[in-house]
C-alpha cells in the first residue's frame, strides 16, 4: 500500500516540483544562496553557527523591510529611491513627538507610521497623477525627506526616548530578536497581499503591461499610488526598529540604504522592469546580501575591497539571471 503510493507519487510529484521550480523566479536566488553559503562555510568555521545566522538576519532586518516596499514598487515597473531618507525622517519626527512634544511613546510610533504613509502618498501622487518618472520623483523627494529631518533636528540625534522603545531594536521573543520577528511578519503580510488579493494581481499586471491593464479596466493610477504608500509604510516600520536599536531619532541614518534594498530585490529575481518576481525572492536576496557581507567580514577582507566584490557579485547575478531566461 505505502509502496504503491510512493511509486505513484514520487516520480510525478518530484518531476512537477522540479518543473515548477525550473520556471520559478526563485530558482536562481536559491541556487545563489546555496552556493554562497557553501563557500562561506568552507571559508569560515563560525559561519553555520546559530548565533551567526541570527546575527545575519538581525543585521538585514532594517534594509530587508525597506526592500519589501521596494519590491511592490519595482513590480509595477517603478522605483523608490527615497526609502532610506524617509526612514530617517520618520525616526526623527517620531522621536521628536516623544521627546520634544512630550507625548507617549505609542503616539510617537504612530506618528512615524503616519509620516511614512503620507510621504509615500506624496511620491505616489507625483508619479501616478503628475505623470513624472518614478526615478526622478523619488530622487527629488529623497533630498526633501533628508533635508526635512535635518532641519527639524538641527542635524543632531533626538534622544531621551521611553525605555520600552528599545524592545523593537534589541528585544527578544523566545530568544528570537524582535527585528527578525517583525521582518518575517511583514514579509508574510506582503506575500498575502501580492499572491492572494486582487490588488496583488493588479500590481503584477501593471508591471507586465500597463497599457493593457489600463484598457482592461484596472485602475492603474490608484494601484501605483498604493504601492508607494506601502513603500512609505515599510520605511516607517524600518524606522521603528532603527529607533529602538539606537534609542534615538537619527536624521542622518540610512544613507544609501535604497541601493542595498534595490540590490536585494534584484538578487531575489524580480525583474527591474516589473511584472515578474516574488516577495520570497526578496527575502532570499536580503539573506544572500547579508551572508556576503558577513562572510567577507569573517574572512577578514579589507572593507574597501568588500564593496568591489559585492558589486561584481551583483553584476554576475544579473547577468546569469538574464541569460537564463
Amino acid at each position, binding site marked *: 500500500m505505502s509502496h504503491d503510493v510512493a511509486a505513484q507519487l514520487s516520480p510525478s510529484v518530484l518531476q512537477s516540483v522540479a518543473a515548477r521550480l525550473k520556471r520559478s523566479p526563485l530558482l536562481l536566488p536559491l541556487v545563489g544562496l546555496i552556493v554562497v553559503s557553501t563557500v562561506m562555510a568552507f571559508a569560515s568555521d563560525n559561519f553555520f553557527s546559530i548565533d551567526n545566522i541570527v546575527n545575519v538576519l538581525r543585521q538585514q532586518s532594517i534594509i530587508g523591510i525597506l526592500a519589501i516596499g521596494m519590491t511592490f514598487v519595482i513590480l509595477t515597473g517603478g522605483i523608490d529611491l527615497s526609502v532610506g531618507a524617509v526612514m530617517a525622517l520618520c525616526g526623527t519626527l517620531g522621536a521628536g513627538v516623544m521627546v520634544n512634544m512630550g507625548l507617549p511613546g505609542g503616539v510617537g510610533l504612530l506618528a512615524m507610521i503616519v509620516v511614512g504613509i503620507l510621504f509615500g502618498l506624496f511620491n505616489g501622487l507625483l508619479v501616478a497623477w503628475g505623470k513624472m518618472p518614478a526615478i526622478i520623483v523619488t530622487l527629488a523627494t529623497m533630498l526633501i525627506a533628508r533635508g526635512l529631518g535635518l532641519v527639524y533636528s538641527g542635524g543632531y540625534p533626538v534622544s531621551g526616548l521611553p525605555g520600552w522603545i528599545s524592545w523593537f531594536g534589541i528585544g527578544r521573543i523566545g530568544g528570537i530578536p524582535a527585528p527578525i520577528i517583525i521582518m518575517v511578519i511583514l514579509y508574510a503580510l506582503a506575500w498575502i497581499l501580492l499572491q*492572494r488579493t486582487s490588488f496583488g494581481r493588479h500590481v503584477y499586471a501593471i508591471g507586465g503591461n500597463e497599457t*493593457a*491593464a*489600463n484598457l*482592461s*479596466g484596472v*485602475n492603474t493610477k490608484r494601484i501605483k499610488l498604493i504601492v508607494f504608500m506601502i513603500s512609505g509604510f515599510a520605511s516607517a516600520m524600518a524606522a521603528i526598529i532603527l529607533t529602538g536599536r539606537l534609542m534615538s531619532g537619527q536624521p542622518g541614518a540610512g544613507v544609501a540604504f535604497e541601493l542595498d534594498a534595490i540590490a536585494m530585490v534584484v538578487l531575489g529575481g524580480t525583474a527591474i522592469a516589473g511584472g515578474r518576481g516574488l516577495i520570497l525572492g526578496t527575502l532570499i536576496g536580503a539573506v544572500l546580501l547579508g551572508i556576503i557581507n558577513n562572510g567577507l567580514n569573517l574572512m577578514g577582507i579589507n572593507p574597501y575591497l568588500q564593496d568591489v566584490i559585492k558589486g561584481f557579485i551583483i553584476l554576475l547575478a544579473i547577468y546569469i539571471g538574464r541569460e537564463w531566461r
Partner: protein
Amino acid sequence: MLEMSGIRKAFGPVKVLHGVDLEVRAGEVHALLGENGAGKSTMMKILCGILQADEGTIRIDGKERHFAHYDEAIAAGVGIVFQEFSLIPYLTAVENIFLAREIRTRFGLLNRKVMRARAKEVLDKLGVNVPLDVPVADLSVAEQQFVEIAKALSLDARVLVLDEPTATLTPGEVEYLFRVMRDLRTHGVAIVFISHHLEEIFEICDRITVLRDGGYVGTRAVAEIDTDGLVEMMVGRRIESNFPPKPASHPQARVVIDAEQIQLHKNGPVSAFQLRQGEVLGFAGLVGSGRTETALSIMGAYPAFRVKVEINGDPVPPKNPSEALARGIGLLPESRKEQGLITAFPIMQNISINNYGKYRRLGVFLDLAAERRHTVNAMQEVRVKAPGPDVPCDTLSGGNQQKVVIARWLNHHTPILIFDEPTRGIDVGAKAEIYQLMRKLTEDGYSIIMISSELPEITGLSDRVCVFRSGAIVATLEGDAITSEEIMKHATTGKLRYVA
C-alpha cells in the same frame, strides 16, 4: 523614368504582392491608390530597398537595379517621404537634412556654414521659407514635411515618393504642397503620390495606378476616369461568404449608447451615432480616419475635445477604462500584444485581470479554485485551443490570443463590447470562428461596435455601418446600402459636419 514590373512579395505563406506593375514618367505625378492593405506601402518599401522583392524587376532610366539597402536606392536617385516623419525632433532643419552625411572641415569638425548654405539652397529651390536654426519639433507639421522633402531632394532624388503627405496638413498647407509638387514636376522629377483623398488625386495627379489585395488592377490617365470608376477599381468584386447570416433588422431595439456629439479635436468635425442592443455596428473608414479614437473616447481612454454621450440613459461618460468597465463597456484593443494582453502572463491571469471581485473569500482573499473554474469555463465558451489555463499567452496563435481577450469580457459579462480590428493577423479558420462568436454574442443580447479595415468583414457582419473620414462619421448605412462601393465612396469623398 521608373519602371517596376511583375513585383511579387510574400511574408512566409502570406502573399502580399502578386505581380504588380508600376511605371512613372519623368515630370509626372503618379497616384498609387488602393484600400488599406492593398500593398502600396510594400511596393514603396521594395522600391527603396527596405524590402526585397521575391520576383520582378526595377528599372530606373531603363537600367535594371537591385537595391539591397535604403542607401543604395538613395544613391540611385530615389527619395521617399514616409508617412511617419523620420526627422530627429531636437535637431535643426539643417542638421536633419545632413544627418549621417555631415559635411566636415579639414579638422574633422562640422562645417556648419557650408551645410547651412546648401540646406538653404534646396529649400529656396522648393520655394519655401523654413526657419533653419530651431529644432524641427518647433516647426509646423507642414514645415516638417518640407524639411523631409528637402532632405530627399538634397540627395538629388529624381524619383520622389510621398506617402500620404496630406494626411496631417490643413487645406492651405495642402495647396502649398501642391504648388511645390507642380514646380518639381516642371523640373522633371517623377513623383509617386499616395493619398486616400480622391479629390486631391484628381487635382494634382496625371495618372493613377490602382492596387487591390496585392494585385495590379490597372493604370489610367486622370482625364479618362471618374470617382465611381476609381472606387470600383479599388473595391472590385468579392466573395463574401463564411459570414453567419444577419438577423432581421430590429430598429425598435433599445439604444444602449447614444452619442450625440463627439468631437475629437477642437474645431474638428463632429460625429453622432447610436448603438442598439443586439447589433453589430461597423466602424468603417481608412486608417487614421478617427474610428479607434472615437470608440475609445466613449470609454474615457482617449482625451477627445467634446464627448456628449448617453450610456444606457446615463449622460455622464466614463472618465477612464476602469469606470467604463463598471458601466459595462469592454474593449478588445487594436493591438493584442501591446494593449490587449500581458503576453508573458498565463491565460488565467489575463482573463481574470479585471474581474477578481468575483473570486473573493472573506472579503479580501482570492478564491483560487473559483478563479480556475471560471477561467476554464470562459476558455471553453470561446474555444481557446491551449493545453490549460496556466500556459503563457505568448505561446498561443494570434487567433487564440484574441479569443483570450474576448473571454476576459465574457467572463465579466460587459454587455457593450468594442472590437477594434478583431481579426487582424489571424488565419481564415480563426476568423470564421470569431465571426460566429460575435453573432452568437449579439443573439445573447450583447451589443458590439466593430472597427475594421477589412471591407468584406464590415459588409458581411455589420447590421449597420458608420463610415468615417478625416476624424468623424460622414455617413451611416443600413440594410442593402451596406456595400463596399458605397462605403468606399463615403470614406474618400464624404462630407464632414462641423458645429459653429
